[in-house]
């Protein structure tokens, strides 16, 4: 609302003075809900509302986190076919890549599955987490999103950058409700906008101009999440000791969970295996 008020005032100011500034205000996710557990407003808070207790909340500090969970995501069976992306028709994209670009929804090398989102699903009862200072970055480069799957904490700033000399629009919907979260355009190379999310949940992001461009933003309440790398590896570091339910989610392969117990200073290794 204030952003738009600013916009209006901007419009009423000088024609030549840019209004770009009005974009940088930290924005909501389009759902007018405060942090809390009212899951009925369809804003996609799907992660363990029941876990949070009003009593006995402890603020998490890095010192409390001594345990680590590492792991790898395996793929068993024949790797699904990857669709080649045809970038023709766009003046920039068609010349941005020399080799064929394949769709990122299945990215399997040597039976390791990339782009799996691993997070602590439950077991953090009682902990409260501060808004992290560092920013996450979602880049658009070569008419692709980088990264394809991005984890972010509620309240954390997400810088969305356009590194291409062509226009992209960033159209995010709350996946569960299909409601609009945000939708705006980045018209020029180097343009950056900042958004943040108030509610946990999965957001599906697309560029409408380039239909092949899509990515997932998963918003969690805690900082313990990672995305599996090309070798399938992931790390959840600086956990407080305890017993956790770890979930691994892939956009095509679905979700798997495991329960792990880690003590102080301990490092445990786990393996997720997906298949068709």
């Amino acid at each position, binding site marked *: 609302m204030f952003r738009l008020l600013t916009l209006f005032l901007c419009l009423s100011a000088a024609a030549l003075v840019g209004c770009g500034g009005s974009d940088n205000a930290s924005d909501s996710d389009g759902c007018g809900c405060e942090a809390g557990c009212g899951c009925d407003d369809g804003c996609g808070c799907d992660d363990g509302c029941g876990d949070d207790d009003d009593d006995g909340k402890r603020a998490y500090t890095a010192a409390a986190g001594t345990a680590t969970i590492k792991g790898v995501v395996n793929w068993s069976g024949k790797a699904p076919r990857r669709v080649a992306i045809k970038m023709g*028709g766009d003046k920039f994209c068609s010349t941005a890549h020399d080799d064929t670009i394949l769709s990122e929804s299945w990215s399997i090398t040597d039976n390791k599955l990339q782009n799996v989102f691993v997070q602590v699903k439950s077991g953090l009862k009682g902990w409260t987490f501060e808004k992290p200072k560092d920013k996450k970055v979602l880049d658009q480069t070569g008419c692709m999103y980088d990264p394809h799957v991005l984890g972010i904490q509620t309240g954390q700033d997400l810088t969305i950058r356009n590194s291409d000399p062509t226009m992209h629009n960033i159209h995010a919907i709350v996946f569960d409700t299909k409601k609009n979260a945000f939708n705006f355009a980045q018209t020029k190379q180097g343009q950056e906008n900042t958004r943040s999310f108030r509610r946990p949940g999965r957001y599906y992001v697309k560029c409408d101009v380039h*239909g*092949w461009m899509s990515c997932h933003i998963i918003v969690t309440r805690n900082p313990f999440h990672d995305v599996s790398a090309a070798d399938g590896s992931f790390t959840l570091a600086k956990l407080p000791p305890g017993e956790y339910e770890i979930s691994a989610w892939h956009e095509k392969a679905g979700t798997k969970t495991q329960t792990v117990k880690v003590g102080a200073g301990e490092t445990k290794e786990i393996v997720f295996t997906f298949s068709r």
Partner: protein
Amino acid sequence: MTETVESPTAPDPKPYQWNNGSGPGGGALLLIAFFLIGTITVIAGFMAGWRPPAASEEGQGIDETITYLLVSTGVIVLVGHAVLCWFLLKGGGTSEYRRPSAKTEWLFGLIPVILMLAISEAGVLIVSGPVWDSLFVEKPVNPVRVEVIGKQFEWIVRYPGKDGIFGKFALKWVHGVDNPAGLDDTDDNALDDVLNGKVLVVPVGRPVVVSLRSHDVIHSFFVPDFRVKQDLLPGYTTEIKFTPTRTGKFEIACAELCGLGHYNMRGEVHVLPQEEYDTWIRSQTGHFGG
């Protein structure tokens, strides 16, 4: 009525008086302005240097209509301005004035009616009618059939594949790169359907019939070089026909406001010689590998 009303004839303090001596001072300037604007427009319209040369048979027909209208209405505008300027320059002075009779007035009403009806209806029926018929009424002979899907904010081109039949589709099956056209992967006809991103490849010299459908809002398929334009309506299938007359790469623009990326909804038409087209289409594999 309690208010005392000023008498209509009461004299005003220093009333304004039209000064007849000032004469039509701006008249000459006005003439120059009218003539300049008129002449420049008509000449610039004829030159139309910015219009890409027509690259389709239908486009040539449409260009003929445009030329016809430019000539006929250009003459009307120029003559009209010339007459107006003549009236302004000549003036009437204060000499005796003969009021035009009612007959003259009706006559001057009748002339433009006949003139404009002739010019405009000839334009519609004689000049543009056959082009319209060839676009929408007549059945094209041996056409290439292609489908173009519009979505915010890009075009998706679909060919029927080797079997020559477009497979089933539904919006519920649409998914990103995997299935941008919403094809039914259980339908044999759909398995070999070829998708070609934003580029429409067609052969030269053959009529191309493009079926158009939209996934979300109204778009408009516009190829300026072919002079054709057709809206895409969600929930409906519309069609447009064109016959490319020369090879080359042309642009597809979206002509109907469709959202914030409307201006960037660019596609391309590649017109190839028939043999090259045949080679190209044979080299394409179906989206589902069929």
